[in-house]
C-alpha cells in the first residue's frame, strides 16, 4: 500500500488548502474589503458563477498559446540549427535572437496589430515572441554541446556534415530543446494574454486577457483573481502536456536504468 505522502496530488492539495485557508483567515481578521483583497472563497464563487465564460476565455487563450508555442518550437529549433551551423552566422545573428528575450512585448504589441490585424494572428505573434527565446537558447546550447568523442566517432566514420547534423547533433539536442519548450510553455500563455490586451477580438467573448480587463474595469477583484487562476491552470496544463511529451521522447534516455542483478 502506498503511504499517504506518496500520492502525487496530495502534497500540493494540502499546501493549497493550507495557503488558501491562511489567506481567507487573514483577510477576515484584518477585515480587508473585497476590492482590495478578495477572499479565496469569493474567488471560488466567482469561478463557479462565471465558469462558462471563464472556460470559453481559457479555451480562446489556450488555442492561441498553443499555436504560439508551436511556432516557437518550430521556428526556434530551425533558428537554433541555423545559428549552430557556423560560428560566423552565430556571431552575426545571435545578438538579434537575444532581442526576442529583451523586447518589451507591451511596447511592440500595438505594432503587431498593424502587421497582423486584430484577432488571433497578433495574439499568436505576441505569444511566439515571448516564448521563442528559451527554445533558441536551449536548443543552440544542445547543438553546440555535442560530446566531442561522438564527433570524433563520426569523423572517423567519414560521416558527411549533414549526417552528423541529423544523426548526431540534432538528436543529441532534443533533451535541451524539450527543456526550452518547458520554460517556453508558461511564457506562451503570458504572451498570449498580453497579446489579448492589445489585439483580442471580442466577437466570441475574447480570451483571459480580455476577461481580466473587463473584470478590472468593473472593479470585480474576485473575478480578476478567478481569471488569473484560470490562466495559471492553463499554464500548468500546457506545462504538463510538454512534460508528457518530454517523458515519451526521452523514454529511451532513461528507460529502466541498468541494475546489476
Amino acid at each position, binding site marked *: 500500500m502506498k503511504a499517504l505522502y506518496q500520492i502525487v496530488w496530495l502534497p500540493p492539495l494540502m499546501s493549497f488548502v493550507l495557503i488558501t485557508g491562511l489567506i481567507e483567515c487573514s483577510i477576515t481578521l484584518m477585515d480587508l*474589503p*473585497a*476590492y*482590495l483583497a478578495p477572499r479565496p472563497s469569493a474567488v471560488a464563487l466567482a469561478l463557479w458563477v462565471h465558469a462558462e465564460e471563464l472556460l470559453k476565455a481559457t479555451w480562446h487563450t489556450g488555442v492561441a498559446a498553443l499555436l504560439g508555442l508551436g511556432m516557437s518550437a518550430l521556428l526556434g529549433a530551425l533558428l537554433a540549427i541555423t545559428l549552430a551551423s557556423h560560428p560566423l552566422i552565430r556571431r552575426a545573428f545571435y545578438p538579434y535572437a537575444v532581442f526576442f528575450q529583451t523586447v518589451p512585448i507591451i511596447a511592440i*504589441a*500595438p*505594432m503587431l*496589430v*498593424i502587421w497582423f490585424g*486584430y*484577432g488571433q494572428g497578433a495574439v499568436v505573434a505576441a505569444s511566439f515572441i515571448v516564448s521563442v527565446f528559451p527554445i533558441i537558447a536551449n536548443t543552440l546550447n544542445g547543438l553546440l554541446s555535442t560530446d566531442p568523442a561522438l564527433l570524433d566517432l563520426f569523423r572517423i566514420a567519414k560521416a558527411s556534415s549533414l549526417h552528423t547534423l541529423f544523426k548526431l547533433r540534432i538528436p543529441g539536442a532534443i533533451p535541451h530543446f524539450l527543456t526550452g519548450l518547458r520554460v517556453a510553455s508558461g511564457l506562451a500563455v503570458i504572451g498570449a494574454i498580453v497579446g*489579448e*490586451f*492589445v*489585439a*483580442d*477580438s*471580442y*466577437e466570441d467573448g*475574447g480570451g483571459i486577457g*480580455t476577461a481580466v*480587463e*473587463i*473584470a*478590472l*474595469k*468593473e*472593479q*470585480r*477583484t474576485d473575478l480578476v483573481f478567478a481569471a488569473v487562476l484560470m490562466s495559471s491552470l492553463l499554464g500548468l496544463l500546457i506545462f504538463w502536456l510538454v512534460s508528457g511529451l518530454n517523458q515519451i521522447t526521452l523514454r529511451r534516455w532513461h528507460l529502466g536504468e541498468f541494475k546489476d542483478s
Partner: protein
Amino acid sequence: MDGASFRIIGLVMVMLISSACKNASDDQRVGAPFKADIQLNWVPEPEFGGYYAARDSGLFDQEHLEVELKPGGPGIPTLQLIESGQVTFGITTADNILIARDRGADLVALFALYQNLPEGIMVHAERGLGALEDVFKGGTLAMEPGTPTFKVLEKRFGFHHLHVVPYTNNLAPFLHDPLLAQQCYLTAEPIAARRAGASPQVFPISDTGYNPYSGVLVTKRDVLIKHKEEVRRLIRALKAGWTAYLKDPTPANQTMHQLNPTMDEATFEASSIVQTPFIIGMPATPIGQMNLERWQTLSGQLVELGLIQPSDPQSAFLPSE
C-alpha cells in the same frame, strides 16, 4: 558677484516669502500645513491644468496646504490607492465612484471638473457618417472593454455589425485603417490625429444621454469626516486655480509640458481650449459644482447596465456650499 552671495540673497528671499505667507494665514491656522497628495489618473495634461496652476501660484500655500500632485498613467488603480490610504485624494469619473461604492468602498466625490463627459467616438470624416449610430453599422471599433461607456454603446446600438477590438492609447491603428473608429477624449486624440494628417470626426458619448461627471476629485469618507475644514480649503484653492487656468493656461501648460515633454506646447494649448466648454457646462455652472439629480440619473443608468445594485447616491458627493 560670486555663487555664495547669490545663495545668501536667495535664502533671504525664501525667508521673506515664506514669512509673508505665514502672515497671511497665521490668524486662523497654526502649526504645520495639512499634507495631502492627489493621485492624477494620467500624465500631466490640460485636464489637470487648474491643479498645477493652484500649486505654482501658491494657492495651496495660501490655504495652508502642502499638496503633492502625483502623475498617473495607464492602469493606475486610483480608487484602490485612496481606499488603502496610500494617497489622500484622487481623480476619476463619477461612474467609477458609484461602482466602487457598490463594491463596498466608502468614497465621496468632492469636485467635478467636467460638467459634460469629454469622451466620444472618433471616426474618419471621409466616411461621411451622420450620427453616432452610424458607427455601429460596420467597420472596426477600438475600445477598452468592460467600461460603462462600452456597455452603454453595446446596449444601445449592439456590436453585431462591426468588429470590436482593444484600444491601447495608440493612434497607429486609427491612422492606418480608414474604417476604424475608436474611443477618444475629445481633448486629446482628435487633436493628435489631426496633427498626424487625418481628418477626424467626433461623436460625443453624451449624445446617448449617458453623461457622468468626470475629472472628479474623490476621497474616502474617513478623510472627509476627519479633515472637513482642510477639504473645504482644498476645494477653494482648486476653484481659484481653475479660474486662473481658464483665464491664462500658458504658465501651467509650460510647467506640465516640462513634466510631460512628449506632448508639445501647441497641443497643450489646443487641448486647453477644447476642454473649456466641458468645464463651464451648458448651462454655465460654477466650477466644480455637482447636483443630486445628475448623480441619481447616473445611478439609475448603472443599475440598468447591471453594474451596480440600486442605492441612493446622496452620500456619494459633497454638495457645494
